[in-house]
């Protein structure tokens, strides 16, 4: 094949690839809020999924909180400093997990710092609590299975009752509004008992023929609205007695949290019982599950008494986490464990349960927690870190806090978009007027450049920031420069009396080296900024780097391909 054909084929393939890369982002950007709500209703989590596959927006564009913490090493004993940052990160991660932030970033920076990014989260004061507090590690006993089941049964009926009243209320409201429609100005007050008795009729009226099916589904889920999401699993190793620890699918957690937060539910949970979540998810049958525990509220033992916590190996080489106790603490722990053999002891950090190992024997000085079968080294490592976080708290201080309000973010997007479009339009018109038809070819290349750039950033799931938008605009300048170099050269060649064809070819050949030069200098800067820039600046470096690289193709190859579509030229509009 000739090189011209190759260029056309490659350009075609690139366009298709760009569309594929850009597809999700394009879809996300064109959805209205109402569309998103509808999508979310049809398939929960689908909007998040789409966001995960699209170009990411930086905190400066979507709003959110960026915090830099310093672990206060001077307040930690020298022997405990080594993994203090990891402990702090583990504690923060446990807490952030419960904020519902979709893509949090929690990472170590330097020797003693932690960066926490919470995109879309703008409750600055709560964020400070989540991030800044020192961890509390406690040991608690579990409630008996029987008592727990009674409580959960009560929660079921309370939730069902609340829902029923709400439905009745909803129907009453409906009735009221319909009577309002017909009897304007004369609203008949509706007797509550009356409306309840009318309930089924109204359902039938509202739903027509399908009402029977609907009612069946409606009422069956109403009998155990809470416990239908629970699956009991924990049993004593010797007696096989069940304990109130339940698997909950990750997607159901928010529903249960809403039910538990109902004032009516909270009022029936006695003060000596505590319902607590696991610190993080486990994978079970290829699904993320949380564990819901029913604990006795009383704190049995404090994590700060644990000493010498480290990972070890059990008698069958299974991973364990070992610790030591001394003095009074050892005696207290011996009493606690001695009295509760074959019962689980919950390790609770920040009111969340890290794990609930069964007590095998009385522990006085040397404790060993054997990980359950199937647990990995990483699980043991996590437990070790959590125990240490409680025993050797790593106090942190906030040294940078950046809160970008959501309206500020959308304002920035708007300004970025407007300035990009105006800058682009000015350049397109200027080049089009000055270089005529050739200018339009350059303009086309420019639009390809921006399209490819957005596609690459979307495909790489790169982060777009406000300076990143500036980088895109600068790419326009650099890309156009390549075409200016070529066109000016072609004009010069034409002036020396060469044919149009020869002038075009000479223009491209002679300008190429200079164009590569100009691109290299920009790439050096972009590279250095990428290596050392933080957040927004990195966004600038990314878009500049990608844009300049792409412009080498669009401004040189694509325009040449268009010029080469015709073989002979008598005149050239340039």
């Amino acid at each position, binding site marked *: 094949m000739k090189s011209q054909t190759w260029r056309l084929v490659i350009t075609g393939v690139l366009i298709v690839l760009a569309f594929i890369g850009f597809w999700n982002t394009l879809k996300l950007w064109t959805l209205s809020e109402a569309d998103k709500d509808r999508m979310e209703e049809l398939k929960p989590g689908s909007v998040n999924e789409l966001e995960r596959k699209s170009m990411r927006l930086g905190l400066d564009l979507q709003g959110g909180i960026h915090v830099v913490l310093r672990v206060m090493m001077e307040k930690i004993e020298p022997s405990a400093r080594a993994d203090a940052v990891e402990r702090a990160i583990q504690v923060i991660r446990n807490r952030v997990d419960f904020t519902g932030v979709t893509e949090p970033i929690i990472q170590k920076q330097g020797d003693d710092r932690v960066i926490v990014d919470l995109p879309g989260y703008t409750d600055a004061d709560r964020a400070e609590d989540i991030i800044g507090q020192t961890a509390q590690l406690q040991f608690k006993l579990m409630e008996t299975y029987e008592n727990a089941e009674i409580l959960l049964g009560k929660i079921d009926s309370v939730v069902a009752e609340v829902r029923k009243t709400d439905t009745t209320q909803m129907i009453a409201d409906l009735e009221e509004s319909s009577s309002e429609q017909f009897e304007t100005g004369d609203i008949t007050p509706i007797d509550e008992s009356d409306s309840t008795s009318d309930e089924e009729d109204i359902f039938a009226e509202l739903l027509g023929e399908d009402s029977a099916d609907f009612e069946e589904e409606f009422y069956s889920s109403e009998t155990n609205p809470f416990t239908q999401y629970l699956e009991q699993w924990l049993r004593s190793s010797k007696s096989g007695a069940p304990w109130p620890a339940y698997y909950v699918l990750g997607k159901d957690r928010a529903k249960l949290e809403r039910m538990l937060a109902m004032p009516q539910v909270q009022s029936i949970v006695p003060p000596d019982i505590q319902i607590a979540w696991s610190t993080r998810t486990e994978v079970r049958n290829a699904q993320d599950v949380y564990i819901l525990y029913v604990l006795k509220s009383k704190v049995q033992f404090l994590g700060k008494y644990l000493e010498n916590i480290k990972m070890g190996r059990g008698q069958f080489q299974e991973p364990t986490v070992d610790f030591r106790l001394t003095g009074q603490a050892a005696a207290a722990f011996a009493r606690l464990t001695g009295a509760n053999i074959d019962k689980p002891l919950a390790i609770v950090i920040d009111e969340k349960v890290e794990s609930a190992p069964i007590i095998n024997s009385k522990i006085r000085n040397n404790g060993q927690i054997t990980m359950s079968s199937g647990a990995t080294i990483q699980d043991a490592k996590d437990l070790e870190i959590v125990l240490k976080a409680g025993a050797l708290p790593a106090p942190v201080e906030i040294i940078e806090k950046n809160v970008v*309000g959501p*309206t500020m973010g959308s304002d920035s997007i708007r300004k970025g978009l407007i*300035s990009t479009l105006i*800058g682009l339009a000015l*350049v397109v018109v200027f080049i089009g*007027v000055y270089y005529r038809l050739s200018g339009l070819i350059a303009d086309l290349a420019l639009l390809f450049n921006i399209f490819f750039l957005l596609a690459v950033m979307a495909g790489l799931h790169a982060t777009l920031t*406000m300076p990143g938008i500036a980088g895109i605009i600068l790419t326009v300048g650099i890309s156009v420069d390549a075409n200016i170099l070529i066109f000016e050269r072609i004009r010069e060649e034409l002036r020396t009396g060469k044919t149009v064809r020869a002038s075009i070819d000479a223009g491209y050949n002679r300008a190429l080296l200079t164009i590569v030069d100009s691109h290299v200098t920009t790439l050096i800067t972009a590279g250095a900024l990428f290596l050392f820039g933080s957040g927004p600046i990195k966004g600038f470096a990314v878009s500049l780097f990608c844009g300049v690289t792409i412009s080498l193709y669009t401004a040189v190859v694509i325009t040449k391909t268009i010029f080469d579509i015709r073989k002979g030229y008598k005149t050239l509009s340039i």
Partner: protein
Amino acid sequence: MFRILKETNINFIGHRRKAFLLSLLLVLLGGTAFVMVLLDKANMGIDFAGGTMLQGNFENPISISDLRGAITGNGFPEASIQELERHNVPNSYIIRVKETTAGEMKAIDRLMQIIQENFAENKFTRDSEHTIGPAVGETLKKSARWAVLISVLGMIIYIGLRFDFRSGVAATVATFHDVLAVLGIFFILNKEITLLVVTALLTLAGYSLTDTVVVYDRIRENLKKFRKKGEFVGTVNRSINEVLSRTVMTSVTSLLVAISLFIFGGEVLHDFALALMIGIVVGTYSSIFVASPIVVEWEAKAPRRFK
């Protein structure tokens, strides 16, 4: 053919002495600013120096001087207050102070308190805030220094590979000239040096070097054609004139882009765009009046065929 510039024959090199004087002034200014930055005496942004930014809007219009008076009179004498143009959010202001604490309180809380006390009738909604401790500023300074160092090194290596010694030195001088000139002008205007401004300066270095490279490429090409003695100055002048229309066109398009960013890009990118605008003008000037004349002077002092 539509042309801004007909074939020109301007004696740029002939004006080099005047240009050197102007450049000397700009570089001295920039050098002073650079020393001030190193001594921490320049007007550094809160991202480098540490400090607090609060941004929000009042329900009803206020006078900015009242707001300024309230803030500066209550323990933040160096506060900077700006009105912010926002879509659908009138009476928006941005307040920057160099402090992160005020007595026992956090500076951000103290600022909120001052506003509530002085504008009790007028509800103030906090939208964004940024508190940067001095330690973070130090880290940012360090990474900015690294970024500058790496790009300078990268460019010098590139120049070394691409040019002979003389033009390499001249190109480096021209690039430093441009960056220092913009820094100096920012210093005179008392603009804050922020991370974004440093980013703009580095971007400009790349831009300015490109302009110089274009001229040098042409000089090199023309020198192959004219090998007779005594034609060096003429060849350099001719080369500058030949690429002049490209230089002007590129500057104009880049300026269009930077101006649109300056006018419509909002507060965040304002100074960034300003630095770019100044830099584009200075970069164009230096590729004509600084980079090439240095080579000419050098050739005059120690004649040697320009490669």
